[in-house]
């Protein structure tokens, strides 16, 4: 049992267990903000357990793509958990392909999920798929350009390298380019994880859905896997935001005490980000679908400005 292996297991465990908790925390905070008591933060665990016990109803129209997709989705998130610096700055698969790999891993999940949306042959599924891939495709350039802005300042594109470089030099973080990249990445996070104002995760009206419409046909253990993966995706994106832009407390060495401290620091950062997200989600309305590209264009402009600022202050 090498320390690296233990760290890998720890990363997967933190992301796997943290995903649903983060979703629950967000729901609780949102409910409190609008004056409801709301569910407890650990409610999603109970939901998942219930879905696992339930019988799955599968449409006769579907093929193996529909049945394989929840597993692929979970697999991409678990592998992504080994690429993102969660509790250590250089996790097990950090060497395997950096942020570009991470982006395309998420795209692998989206690809299968969008196919599954089409597989059942209902109009809602197709609608959700079409919208989801449109949003994902338009968010793509922003992610790369924002990351490029970070990589320019850090001198490496390795995620762990970026974290270590920024943690060692606080002046780099105080740079205005850093804040612009953060804003760009935050908007992209909203789009990629299906939050307001891009998509409303709590909507009950199919015509306004994006993600929920795509997974409408899922039930039972399939739904449990899809929901779990969605929770992990939110966790991973918020962790990226937390650790790339506020890189303190991410241990470079793998030992018990630093990793435990790192987990605590991460928990603190995530709570703050989740609270910000909850405030945002309770204060804005969902955008009309065809206004979403404007939002994404704005985030792209922020990312480009961030890159330009690197040239200016060089």
């Amino acid at each position, binding site marked *: 049992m090498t320390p690296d292996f233990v760290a890998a297991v720890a990363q997967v465990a933190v992301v796997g267990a943290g995903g649903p908790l983060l979703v629950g925390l967000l729901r609780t905070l949102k409910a409190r903000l609008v004056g409801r008591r709301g569910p407890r933060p650990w409610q999603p665990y109970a939901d998942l357990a219930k879905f696992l016990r339930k*019988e*799955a*109803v*599968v*449409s*006769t*129209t579907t*093929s193996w*793509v529909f049945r394989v997709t929840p*597993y692929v989705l*979970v*697999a*991409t998130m*678990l*592998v992504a958990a*080994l690429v993102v610096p969660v509790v250590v700055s250089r996790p097990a*698969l950090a*060497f*395997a*392909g*950096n942020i*570009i*790999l991470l982006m*395309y891993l998420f*795209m692998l999940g*989206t*690809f299968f999920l*969008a*196919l599954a949306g*089409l*597989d059942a*042959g*209902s*109009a809602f*599924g*197709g*609608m959700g*798929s*079409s919208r989801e*891939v*449109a949003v994902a*495709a*338009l968010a793509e*350039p922003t*992610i*790369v*350009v924002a990351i*490029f802005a970070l*990589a*320019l300042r850090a001198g*490496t*594109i*390795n995620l762990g*390298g970026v974290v270590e470089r920024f943690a060692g030099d606080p002046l780099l973080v105080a740079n205005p380019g850093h804040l612009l990249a953060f804003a760009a990445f935050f908007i992209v996070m909203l789009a990629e994880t299906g939050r307001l104002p891009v998509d409303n995760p709590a909507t009950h009206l199919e015509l306004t859905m994006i993600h929920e419409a795509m997974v409408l046909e899922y039930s*039972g*253990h399939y739904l449990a*896997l899809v929901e779990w993966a969605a929770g992990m995706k939110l966790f991973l994106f918020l962790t990226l935001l937390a650790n790339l832009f506020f890189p303190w407390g991410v241990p470079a060495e793998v030992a018990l005490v630093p990793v435990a401290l790192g987990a605590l620091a991460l928990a603190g950062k995530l709570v703050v980000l989740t609270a910000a997200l909850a405030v945002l989600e309770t204060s804005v309305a969902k955008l009309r679908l065809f206004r979403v590209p404007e939002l994404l264009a704005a985030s792209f402009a922020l990312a*480009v400005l961030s*890159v330009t600022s690197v*040239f200016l202050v060089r």
Partner: protein
Amino acid sequence: MAILAYAVAATGGLAAALLGLAGVLGTAFTVRAPWLLPLGGLEVTLDPLGGFFLALIGAAAVPASIYAMGYAAGERRGVLAYNVFVASMCAVPLAANVLTFLLAWELMSLASYVLVVQSGEREAVRAAWVYALMTHAGLACLLAGMLLLGSWTGSFRFTDWYAAASPLPSWGPGLAFVLLALGFGVKAGVIPLHVWLPLAHPAAPSHVSALMSGVMIKLGVYGLMRVGLDWLGGGPAWWGVAVMLAGTVSAVVGVLYALVEHDLKRLLAFHSIENVGIILIGLGAGMLFYEAGLPALALLGFAAALYHTMNHAAFKALLFLGAGAVLHAAGTRDMERMGGLIKRMPWTAACFMVGSAAIAALPPLNGFVSEWLTFQALLQNLKIDRPEVNLVFALGIAGLALTGGLAMACFVKAFGITFLALPRSEAAARAHEAGRAMRVGMGLLALACVVLGLAPTLVVPALAKIGADVMHVPAPADVGGWLTLNVSGEFASLSTLAVAAALVTALAVPAATLALAGIGRRRRLYETWGCGRLLQTSRMEYTATAFANPFKRVFDFFYRPVTQLDIEVHPESRLFVRRIEYANPTSSIFEDWLYRPALDALHRWARRARGLQSGSANLYLTYILAALLALLVLA
């Protein structure tokens, strides 16, 4: 009979692939026949870059020919043209002087023309006409550029140009580069020279489409590599800038056109434009780094371009063969009339899925590896200390990212609408699986997509060696071990093998855990939820048009869609509608703003010139006299 001819093509392809591989590994030879023809006669030579393209053509010809044994077994037309096509393609990268090159090039164009026109349908004839026009305009550019270079340097052998190019005046190589790049750009389908490609590729039989898209257009890329880096020993920065901008525009515009295209083969043809764009982004990066005196990064960009060239040959050939199988089975190329084919054609669907995932650059398949490499080359552009060049790189980065996202969206559409849900027509409902030979052809290419995805540590060093030979620089020393590919030292590393292993584990462990816990055993089959409607029909499904509609609206400044609504009402009352026709076609900027004005101007001038030809013999005699006098004065 036809089967035998295709077997010959497959064997020849295998031999060519092996010979090319030997060339990549360092075997070199030259065969000359100077007495045969003027201008230096025929001369062929094998070098690493030529060997790479020869191997690529041969390796693509094998599965395409095997597939053709099943696909076109009863069809005797086009067999000879097919063999000539493959042979002449193999000759192009071997050609060592102008005459050999142009002969092979023209033979390849003519053979593919015959293959495009052979079905005799109206659409095919028109496509072949546009193709012939464009390819000969390209040939004229090539001829002019090569003859200029030949007369300036005093030699028609390509290897002599490298030494003789430096004493030329600076505009000389520039002019030659522009002419040759235009000529090769037509063949590669670079926007705005692409108009023939989406017409000609779908019109040919599918195994020919696979070769045209998979390897023939790559010979345009081959030419651009030769002229950009090898023959003239590289050029000023604007060459690289031009190549990268052309690549970015081709990539984004190609995929945008593909998104709103619902003819499966035309969709794939537009993706060929996109992928040539991605290759050119890598090549342009290589040229810019080379010009800036950064050979290691130049090799990275060049290797990325070569890798994507190879990958595109694998997955695009696979997708065209898959589309051919669908066309064979459902009798249509219109995606709106397909659907549900995954149940009747499971093998074709699985192969098409691999191809779709590969072209969408999903890890751990081959498209991902080459796009990753291209990104790594682009992301290091700050080592060139020139803001205007950095800006071009930034455009390339954003363009490549957008292309990646849009390509994923487009292949969700291509696979989802074609293979999933309920069949949208009788023909699709009665579709049948492809025959064994066709399945073998597709299976080989699917395997290639997986292997090329998992083996970058083997492939990249070999590609870097080819690049080192072309650019006359030393090959990089350290690119990592068998598991990990290192790029530029500490900058980045890639291990698709590790990613694949992790993905398989992450798939297997949750699935096994659920199975052991007895979860998921209870499953009920029921119809899709339809808001209470009793019967689900294919008319409730999302169509390809609807799927692409968000993109049409977001990029409406580019597509410029026109809504045509035609409602026929009952003569007695407007409240009774008899028929509604709705169309929302898009228009092509390039045809409207570039080709149509150019053609109109040509027609106008031609009409004016008609006055010269009055039919009067006296007038003609005057022309002759005037011409004679002019010549005498000039002499």
